[in-house]
């Protein structure tokens, strides 16, 4: 995977990271909650769904349906899992950020 091929929106990246953190336990509401817990940001459930679907289409996530429970009006959950491609994308983004950040002149960081 090359760096310039990564196509990821800001909110999408956040959702991808959260899904990775939740590992095997990520579904709509959970991701929504976790975003608020981790960042304090109040997202909308339809926005989360859209982002998850987009990421799946790009091949960074894959999904499967869980079993039915008595909760949620008996509806099944759709769980998301980060694919290898998704992991690569996260790594690339992480690396790029770090490389860029490390080049900021110290004087700027000290005098903030």
């Amino acid at each position, binding site marked *: 995977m090359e760096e310039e091929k990564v196509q990821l929106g800001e909110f999408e990246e956040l959702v991808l990271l959260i899904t990775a953190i939740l590992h095997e336990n990520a579904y*709509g*509401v959970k991701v929504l909650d976790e975003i608020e817990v981790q960042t304090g940001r109040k997202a909308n*459930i*339809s926005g989360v*769904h859209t982002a998850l679907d987009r990421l799946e289409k790009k091949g960074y996530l894959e999904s499967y349906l869980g079993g039915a429970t008595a*909760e*949620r*009006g008996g509806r099944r*959950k759709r769980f998301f899992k980060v694919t290898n491609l998704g992991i690569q994308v996260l790594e690339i983004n992480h690396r790029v950020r770090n490389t860029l950040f490390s080049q900021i002149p110290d004087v700027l960081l000290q005098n903030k």
Partner: protein
Amino acid sequence: MKATPEPPKLALRLLQWFCKPWYVEVIEGDLYELFDREVEHSPKAARWKFTWNVIRFFRWRYIKDLDDFLPKSPFGMFKTYFKVSLRNMLKNKTQTIFNIMGLAIGIACCVIILTHVKHQTSFDKDIPQAEDIYRVTINGRGPYTPAQMVKYMKADYPEVLNGARLGGMGEVVIKQGDQYIKQPNVLMADSTFFDLFPNTFMRGEAKTALNGPNDVVLTESMAQKYFPNLDPIGEILDIDGQKCVVKAVVMDAPRTTTIPYQMIQSIPWEKWATTGNWTGNNFFSYLKLAPGADPKVLESKFPLFIEKYMGDEILKYNPQYSSYREFVQDNNQHTFVLIPMLDIHLHHPSLTLGNPGNYNNLIIFSLVALFILLLACINYVNMATAKSSLRAKEIGIRKVLGSVKSLIAQQFLVESFVITGLAIFIAVGLTLLVLPYFNMISQNQYEWADILNARNVGWYLIIWLMVGLLAGVYPASFLSSFKPIAALKGESRTGGNQKLRSSLVVLQFAISMFLMVATFIVYTQLRHMNSRQLGLDAEQVFVLSDADKLVGKMDRFKSMVMGNSNISNISFTSGYPSGFLADWGYHTNGENVVSVDPLNVFADPSVLDVWGLEIIEGRFFDPNMKSDSMTIVINEQLQEELGWKEPIGKVLSRGDGKDFRVIGVVKDFVTRSAKNHGSSLLIRWSSESTPYANYFASIKIKGNINEALNHIDKTWANVLPGYPMDGQFMDDSFQRLYDEERRFGKMFTGASVLAIIIACIGLFSLTAFILERKRKEIALRKVMGARVDQLFFGVSRYFVKLVLISAIVVIPASFYVGDFWLSSYVDRISLSSMIFLIPLLLMMIISLVTISYQTYRSAVKNPVDALKEE
């Protein structure tokens, strides 16, 4: 146990309705979870939030598409067809652009003509009960009728509900302060006018609008012109010296009317208008019949009507008959014919008070537009079948995978519909772009709203369906009939039916060439008419209108005008060649009375010199002989009609006791357009005091034209200060007789250029295809030693042959049609072989130039490139 609170049912139903089924469960689950969490704090807020969240899911991604709504429809399949079509179009970009542009040009022609046809066929349709309104004519042709006719028809026949006489519709001069303003389209009408032809009254009312002898009704724009920002009611308007009172203001007449008035004067109460002469025809008469009354029944009563009221007066002018019955028995037709108002604009152009329509031209241009569209469709069919080899594998594989013929045919139909749809959008754009030019040529005022309206959208849909089918059906049935194994092995009938394609190309050439020949014939005839031998000297003669305003000052004007060295002579007349000349009835005296209706020209003695006429027998008027005032000069044709061997000294009578002695014969000269036969004519002596005589002044110019015109202008302003001068050269006036032919020629030029462009587009892409298939052949020939010119010749031969075949088809057809068109002209060209040869050569050159670029390019290519690849 307390029941678990449930989320709002309506929101759930909404979600299930719009959301794709696959997503519904998961989304519902998440919404339930959020709801359950919040319902404990506040059930109401939770319900609201649930609904709000449902609405937030109303996103493109989650909304059902047509597949989900109509799971059993073939829509999914059409989506695929659509995709495949777009991919194919993108793959062959040049061909696609050519196809779309060709169709767009053809459709644009149709859109313009449709707009034109719609406009031309909607004349007078907005008049209430227009189908019961009839125009009374004499023998179905003569537009003018006697003054008392309407009055007595209304009185004698119960089925005539109402009637109105109209008059004038000419130009008047309005005096405001010391300003004289020429005002066209001034109608005179009876007070019943608005009963037959209602209009919206901005000021005043219909009942009192035209009751008095000098009432005038203005249209809105005229009220604005003469009384800006004033209340015009009760104001005085000086029309041709009459003080008229403005009684009402109405809306401007619509564009689609045969009575395009700008002002209406009441018909005066003088003798000529109230009791009038039964043989003097001065009024346009309209009758409104009872709904459903048969005009034929009414017409059958007219002969008695004429005998009762007009018999005596007709006999006065035809003294050779002793009774009216005898006059009728001698095949003298004189009856009133009713023409439906709705037929006037297109079918009786001589009866309209506005710009006449032309039914034949409407049909011709509709056909031409259809032909051009047909050309474009042929291009599409040709290219679609020619390039079929490119699609053979696709079709083969589809068939192997289980597709049937009809499904593949659908694919190709969808393609033609997609292309036609795009072409329509471009066509509408093109139409809006060329609309100003079309307006200029055809003298119309079409606007964007005439092209883009709800009615036309319906037409666009019809065009879309028709053209899509016309272009798509053959390729679809041809391509879908490929045998799958043969197609996959590459031995299918690729390239299509060569014969069919050749004949379609022949048809294209034929249509283009036909239009070229037609254009050529129109222009040759125009040139012929412009260079006619007139028998008079029209070039240096300047004709002034309104010369009757000079009466009383004529001598002064004359001597002042002649005072300039650039002016050689001046003559006052009642009419002039190429302008309107009235025909008057005369008859011989004594036994064997002969009645004739020659054109009647009043002129003073100098007209012989000014118009450049030629006396072939006798003499012309002598200004020094007082006795010449009761003499006439006749032309050759009148002499022939009267059968006089020795005309000098013979006498013609007007039927009112006045006799005129013939003193000379003038050589025939042209007075009307080339559509008319030469006419018998006589010239009557006139002087300043002769009535009906001095409407025009012909001025003969020698030397510097500009200085002469300048001088005339100054003299006019000096003698008639403030009164606008109006004049034209006689040869320009002759040219103006052919304005319609000139427009016709321009429209045909446009049509042939478009047809040729489309045919060239087709030829260009067809050549590309043929050369593509012959690539290896050309390369091999070249390796074997063929020269470039030999190769070029080999390819061009095919097209030259097609041009020649189409010429064989076209020449007889265009000869026939051209001859028919020319048959309405008395003075016409004969169709020589040049008229057909020149377009044929032109077509040949155009087609060779079109194919030469690509042929040359492939002929000079390195043969190795074509041969090495496998």
